[in-house]
């Protein structure tokens, strides 16, 4: 029997600590049913925000549902980019390229303006979007592979500029290959999922035409993205708590050491790129469906920067953090728009909104100074079946505050902890 010592005083610091870790600590302390009890209503609450229209929160000048829909898409983007940047530590400044490829795949296959339009041949407009989403994901993943295989040999900042170039090249191709993409004229009439058509909304709830607030198309797209986010979180969470996720972190921390430890670093970097790309492509497909119109200008470098801001602002490496980051990036610029008063104080929101990029820039600088690790930094969990281990540690930690000897606390620990070991983490999805 190993002896346990409480020699390490509670109070050792860690690089990622603060709200994120504290919250995670608390969350892990909850029993599984409790976690469900808290988690599900919370997600439902978020999902219904555009319906509830809480006064100060709801945007005025733009439709809140629409804003949330965009948030959903950017959240997906942020989760995908987080795999690449946050986990594997590969600085990708051209992520918007994947977003664009996803959007253009759907648009090229379903827009009547496109030479490759399938909808007038054998694919019904109703199913076209759904049919194209997997294609979009596959094509972006492949483009991730194509971009990655030659360039992932490059290190750090070389990779950054090459990816930035890639993002630009994608946009410029969309712009220049006018016979296929219509260049700057864009592709119109992109398909969207057909669902719940009524007399009033003959094209279904996802149609841009559905504008009966609050149940308008924005809300539906938001819901669709929530579902996709949850799925993607499960997938990414599973990856993180596996050999793959550990390899990513190891690569991020010390690529040479990782390789010498036998980790096939190139392969896993490539996977990170492909997975990130695929998620970006999925989000792009959502975008194309929602807006039903794609033009190259929506995919310029600045958007890559915004995506990266979402990731770093939220706390790179932390999936929930980056979602929060995405929310801030999307929501803040819309907040002032059209407001005539705030908390009873009369303002000219449109005027303020005119300065949004100024404020945005200042906010970025200030936030980074005060929270250099991001708003919501937290350590990833990298082991799938170690719930018991961490629970034992946590109990000891909590016990350490009360009793000085952790051993005393541990004494009553083993019973339920060990019962929790094998496979207990199986359903530990989504990291929530």
């Amino acid at each position, binding site marked *: 029997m190993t002896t346990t010592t409480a020699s390490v005083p509670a109070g050792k610091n860690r690089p990622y600590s603060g709200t994120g870790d504290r919250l995670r600590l608390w969350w892990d302390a909850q029993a599984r049913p409790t976690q469900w009890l808290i988690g599900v209503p919370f997600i439902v609450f978020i999902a219904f925000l555009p319906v509830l229209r809480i006064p100060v929160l709801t945007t*005025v*000048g*733009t*439709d809140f*549902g*629409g*804003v949330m*829909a*965009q948030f959903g898409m950017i959240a997906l983007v942020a989760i995908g980019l987080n795999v690449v940047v946050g986990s594997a530590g590969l600085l990708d400044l051209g992520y918007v390229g994947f977003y664009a490829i996803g959007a253009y795949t759907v648009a090229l296959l379903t827009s009547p303006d496109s030479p490759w339009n399938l909808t007038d041949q054998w694919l019904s407009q109703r199913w076209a979007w759904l049919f194209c989403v997997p294609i979009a994901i596959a094509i972006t993943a492949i483009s991730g592979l194509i971009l990655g295989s030659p360039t992932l040999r490059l290190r750090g900042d070389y990779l950054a500029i090459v990816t930035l170039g890639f993002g630009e090249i994608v946009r410029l191709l969309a*712009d*220049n290959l*006018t016979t296929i993409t219509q*260049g*700057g*004229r*864009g592709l*119109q009439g992109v398909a969207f999922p057909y669902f719940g058509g009524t007399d009033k*909304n003959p*094209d279904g709830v996802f*149609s*841009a*035409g*559905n*504008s*009966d*607030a609050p149940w*308008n*198309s*924005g809300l539906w797209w938001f819901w669709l993205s929530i579902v996709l986010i949850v799925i993607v979180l499960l997938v990414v969470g599973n990856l993180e708590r596996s050999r793959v996720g550990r390899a990513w972190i190891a690569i991020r921390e010390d690529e040479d050491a990782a390789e010498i430890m036998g980790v096939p670093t190139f392969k896993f970097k490539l996977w990170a790129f492909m997975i990130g790309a695929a998620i970006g492509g999925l989000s792009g497909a959502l*975008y194309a469906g*929602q*807006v*039903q*119109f794609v*033009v*190259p*200008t*929506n995919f310029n470098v600045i958007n890559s920067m915004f995506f990266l801001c979402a990731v770093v602002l939220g706390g790179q490496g932390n999936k929930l953090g980056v979602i929060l980051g995405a929310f801030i990036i999307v929501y803040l610029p*819309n907040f002032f*728009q*059209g407001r005539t008063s705030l908390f009873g104080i009369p303002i000219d929101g*449109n005027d303020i*909104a*005119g300065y*949004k990029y100024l404020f945005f820039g200042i906010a970025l600088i200030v936030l980074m100074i005060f929270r250099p690790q991001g708003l919501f930094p937290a350590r990833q969990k990298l082991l799938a079946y170690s719930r018991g281990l961490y629970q034992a540690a946590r109990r000891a930690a909590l016990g350490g505050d009360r009793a000085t000897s952790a051993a005393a606390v541990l004494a009553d620990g083993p019973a339920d902890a060990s019962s929790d070991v094998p496979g207990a983490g199986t359903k530990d999805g989504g990291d929530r």
Partner: protein
Amino acid sequence: GCSSKDDSGGGGGGATGGSTGGSSALSIQPLVQIDNTGKEVAASDASGAADPAGDGSAKCSDVSLAMAGALTGGNAALGLNIYNGAKLAVDEHNKANADCQVTLKKFDTEGDPQKATQVAPTIVSDKTVLGLLGPAFSGETKATGGIFKQAGLLSATASATNPGLTTNGWSNFFRGLGNDNSQGAAIAKYMTDTLGYKKVCVVADNQDYSVGLADVVTKTLGSAADKDCAASVKQGDTDFSATVQIVKSAQADAVYYAGYYQEAAPFVSQLRSSGVTLPFISDDGTNDPEFVKQAGDASKDAYLTCPCGPAPSDFATKYQASAGKAPGVYSVEAYDLVTIMLKAIDSGVTDRADMVKFFAGYDGQGVAKHYKWDSSGELASTTTWVYQVK
């Protein structure tokens, strides 16, 4: 100390607003109004133009009009031109009609299609909004047309000129000016028939509007379009050396540029300073006092077109007083379209469907031109104005 190096001693101080081009005192002067075949048409008589003030006895309550376009971001100037024109009309109306106070609500789309899809539902769900002036750009109009269509809300644009917009069956959509087909065809014909060019280099930037316009111009020019020196540049470019080289080494009679003044000004400057003296012809995106200010003497004699007519001087005066600057492109169209909406309200229109009907049946003179639409929402007859920098 240094004395002024400005040997001609002129003003040129303020960097905004003024319509003169610095010390060389160049400005954009209307030259001729032409039809789609490049033939001159006499300027219409604007004296009977509809007046937003009406007879001063209108009654209405709780109605508003919306304006959507880029109010912030890089293209804000264009949106503001439109907003200010609309605001002038509404102010005049409200001043004259104490019992019918119409609110003008502005919605910022930044010119971004996705942003516009978020803004559109807000406009639609505001039940007091009876008519929409906008969206301003073709791209965002494409993205949101379905929303307004489904809501049955009048969407009258003072600026979106992409020809495709009226082919979607949007019965609520009206265009207050000629589309790029007519502008492009008109100037192309004018170049070959009136100005007598045999070879023209068509250069365009990469934006929706420019690409479309360049297409039409090239097509209409037919064999007069010189393929060897056709070139495409990018929004935001400032350095056109390669394009200049291309033009320089071609044996052309003129350069046509489809795009906006931001790029047109440095382009023409660089053409001139590398010794290319070919005539320079451009479009409504370039047709802005800024162009002359930026390009200076290089802009001299350039032909600029616009489906929009020149602002009559009394309009310009009113506008200057209200907006604090000279009217820009589409200010007049915005004023006219909002005037029509106000007339509808004054005549008792209280719901969206009636507003659309009012537009469909409208036939009247405006400050800029005569307004009467065909069933697709295009003006029944369109003309293009040719201006020249002098």
